[in-house]
């Protein structure tokens, strides 16, 4: 039996059930009727089941190379290795929509199961919101981009996937990013449920805290993986070009980061309630927007935008969400007022607020830069382009301020920081930063645009170390445990806090890497004959020979470059160009030698035609030295470590009533309590 034939009907069933689930959940909640609520919940499970069937049938069609399906023919071919055939699931718009829907189905199931005995007031509305989301994607699939569309004339062979995309990143980067996007739906759904039911204390926040962290983490990793793919595969020496597609994934992450921080203020002081609900809604909307942007290419031109039917569906949905959120917030306005107010200009609350303003500002600045060309053309009729210079000039000051805040904010006191508090917490890190600046200057690292951020990194590291140090010592004094045990228990009993600090170390690593690889980058192009050498930075490269390898899958031209670092031979770099059978242009394979200190990055640009057999042609190479770029990738590991620690369940459950509102000065004491 052709299992794939089940796909389309499964989508139809899922759609009907999602509407039913939404309606019954809402009806049951308003009438307080358990039976209806349960029916709604079970329908949601059924939606997930049908989405599983649909997904499996798409995979089935892909793996069987059933080219009677348009989607299979467009995104896969028999020549592709099995894993990329499966990855073709999310290669295009229709499949991506199905992946989204499936993931929401999965999350709905998990959320329902985890909370089946809790949050009884909120859960029906949570399910309703999640079902609205699922039905939107099902509408897109059923009436827009159908993954099970048949071809009028089935083709014998499908489309070969662009070789640039045939690498492991293609397997990991899109699903990671989508997990992040979809993950943001859960806190959003809880926020809406909280608004609808009027349960506006931080219950919804505490329930969704781990979901938010989880989504934020995957979103960030997705962005980082995308940058790493660009670095290795696209071959222009960099990893971030402020492309609309890149920006589309960065914006929700920035807003989610802001949200992660501002919820702490609501939990500790009952402030920023409207702000939090708005932020999570914005993160959700930007996730939808990001998915749409990435898969539809609308920002390539205004015409692409206006011609797109799916584009209008997305815009209508986003408008619907915005109107809904604004309405719900307005309805509960008085209940959303803060329990407390900002008391000190220099305080943890105000620093968090500044952090949020900057992160949100950054996201909006990126949004502006990304859509300005479209707006300009639509309104003024003048076509403009906004490229890297705009983004760099706007993001550098914002980024630097955020970097400093990363060190400042965790240590500053609640309510109002006294001069003694400031001195005690920041004197040593500041001194450390200044010393680092001087040391850098003495070692010849002079450019201000590099020294300042790197000194700030030292400042932040100093504050983190200070926190760990003081915390460990205080615990040891209190419990008499050894230093090692104190340290472990300190982290174990305050996982959010110290996990967060480790994530901040990742932030430092990221900034240091970005600074090094942009400010101190070296670039050189050279044409070499066999045996000739070229110097770049402290490296010397000698072009030795060229290999040609023929292969049914691809023909390869490989250049051999011997590399010396500070006079010491360190190995051979092999930049290549690959020629794939049905691709018109060659694919550049970069050669990278990476250390923590820097990357040596080489591209084979072109080579002369040989005049005689056996003669080694002269070749042109483009070389980069990217200092500290390894720290950019390393930041991912710190973030992973910190997030894992922060997400682990707490060993001791604090009674719900004992929410700690730290009075002024407690931040000074070295016994942190979350």
């Amino acid at each position, binding site marked *: 039996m052709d299992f794939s034939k089940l796909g389309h009907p499964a989508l139809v069933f899922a759609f009907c059930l999602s509407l039913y689930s939404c309606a019954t959940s809402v009806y049951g909640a308003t009438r307080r009727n358990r039976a209806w609520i349960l029916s709604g919940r079970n329908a949601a499970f059924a939606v997930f089941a049908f989405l599983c069937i649909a997904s499996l049938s798409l995979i089935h069609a892909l793996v069987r190379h059933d080219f009677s399906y*348009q989607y299979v*023919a*467009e*995104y896969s071919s028999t020549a592709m290795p099995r894993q990329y055939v499966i990855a073709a699931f999310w290669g*295009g*718009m229709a499949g991506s929509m199905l992946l989204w829907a499936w993931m929401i189905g999965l999350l709905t199931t998990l959320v329902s199961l985890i909370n089946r005995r809790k949050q009884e007031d909120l859960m029906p509305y949570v399910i309703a919101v999640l079902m609205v989301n699922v039905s939107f994607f099902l509408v897109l699939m059923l009436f827009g981009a159908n993954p099970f*569309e048949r*071809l*009028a004339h089935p083709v014998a062979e499908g489309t*070969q996937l*662009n070789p*640039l*995309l045939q690498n492991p990143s293609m397997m990991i980067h899109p699903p990671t990013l989508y997990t992040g996007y979809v993950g943001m739906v859960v806190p959003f759904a809880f926020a809406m449920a909280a608004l609808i039911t009027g349960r506006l204390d931080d219950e919804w926040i505490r329930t969704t805290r781990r979901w938010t962290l989880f989504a934020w983490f995957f979103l960030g990793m997705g962005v980082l993986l995308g940058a790493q793919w660009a670095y290795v*595969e*696209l071959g*222009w020496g960099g990893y971030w070009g402020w492309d609309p597609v890149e920006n589309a994934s960065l914006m929700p992450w920035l807003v989610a980061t802001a949200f992660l921080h501002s919820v702490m203020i609501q939990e500790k002081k009952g402030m920023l309630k409207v702000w939090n609900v708005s932020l999570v809604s914005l993160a959700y909307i930007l996730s939808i927007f990001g998915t749409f942007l990435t*898969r*539809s*290419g609308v920002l390539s031109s205004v015409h*692409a935008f206006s*011609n797109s039917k799916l584009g209008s569906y997305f815009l209508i949905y986003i408008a619907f969400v915005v109107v809904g959120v604004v309405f719900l917030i307005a309805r509960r306005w008085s209940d959303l007022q803060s329990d407390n*107010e*900002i*008391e*000190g*200009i220099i305080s943890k609350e*105000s620093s968090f*607020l*500044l952090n949020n*303003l*900057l992160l949100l*500002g950054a996201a*909006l*600045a990126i949004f*502006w*830069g990304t859509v*300005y060309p479209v707006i*300009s053309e639509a309104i003024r009729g003048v*076509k*403009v*382009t*906004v*490229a890297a*210079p*705009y983004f760099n*000039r*706007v993001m550098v000051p914002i980024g630097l301020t955020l970097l400093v805040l990363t060190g400042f904010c965790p240590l500053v006191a609640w309510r109002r920081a006294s001069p003694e508090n400031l001195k005690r917490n920041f004197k040593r890190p500041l001194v450390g930063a200044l010393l680092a600046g001087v040391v850098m200057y003495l070692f010849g690292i002079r450019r201000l645009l590099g020294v300042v951020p790197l000194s700030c990194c030292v400042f932040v590291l100093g504050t983190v170390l200070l926190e760990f140090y003081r915390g460990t010592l205080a615990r040891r004094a209190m419990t008499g445990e050894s230093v090692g045990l104190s340290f472990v228990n300190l982290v174990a009993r305050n996982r959010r806090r110290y996990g967060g600090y480790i994530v901040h170390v990742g932030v430092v690593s990221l900034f240091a890497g970005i600074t090094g690889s942009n400010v101190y980058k070296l670039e050189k*192009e050279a*044409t070499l004959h066999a045996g000739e050498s070229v110097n770049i930075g402290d490296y010397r490269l000698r072009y030795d020979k060229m290999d040609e390898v023929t292969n049914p899958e691809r023909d390869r031209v490989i250049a051999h470059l011997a590399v010396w670092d500070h006079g010491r031979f360190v190995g051979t770099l092999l930049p290549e*160009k690959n020629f794939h059978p*049905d*691709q018109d*242009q*060659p694919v*550049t394979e970069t050669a990278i030698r990476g250390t923590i200190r820097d990357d040596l990055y080489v*591209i084979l640009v*072109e080579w*002369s035609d040989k005049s005689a057999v056996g003669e080694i042609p002269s070749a*042109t190479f*483009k070389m980069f030295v990217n200092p500290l770029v390894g720290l950019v990738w390393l930041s991912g590991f710190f973030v992973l470590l910190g997030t894992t620690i922060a997400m682990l369940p707490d060993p001791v459950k604090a009674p719900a009533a004992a929410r700690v509102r730290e009075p002024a000065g407690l931040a000074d004491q070295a016994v942190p309590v979350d």
Partner: protein
Amino acid sequence: MSVSGTGVSLTVENCVTILEWSYQANNGVIMKNKKQTQVTIGVGVIVIALIWLVLENTRSSSIRYFEVKEIAAEAASLDGRQIRMRGKVKNGSINKDRESLKVRFVIQDELGKTSYPVEYSGIVPDTFKDGSEVVVDGTFHRDATFEATMLQAKCPSKYEMQDRGTKGQMPKNHTSAPADNQKGY
């Protein structure tokens, strides 16, 4: 004080209210209001700074974007200016100088009527060849070569949206979408 006019009487009312507040015995209330004002001002300053940062840089960093055929009309005013041009590579016009690592070619509009010589030094993307759709950023010279600092090229296939003719039909050219567009700097 008796004055006419709603505006002025409202202002008088406000003054009276403020005076009442400031004469309140509770010091805490005064402090709180002052703090609130400070916070509002602080937030306002930051928001204004951010808005200024964005608008100023939009103005100074945005480059006008032209199809090749649109330039002729404004060629005089664009002389010496930084612009972005989009067009096609004229067949047979690509000239790569291996020693100076410069590339010279001619960019033309779809019909082949208007064309301009371009010179570019930098990495040439793999997609750059005869007939490719190209986008170049650089300085336009009306009677001289366009000095390009950035070159993007797309192979003569296209994006998913434009591509999809009718449902149930294969798009004309068989390359999958995302990374068709390659950049060179």
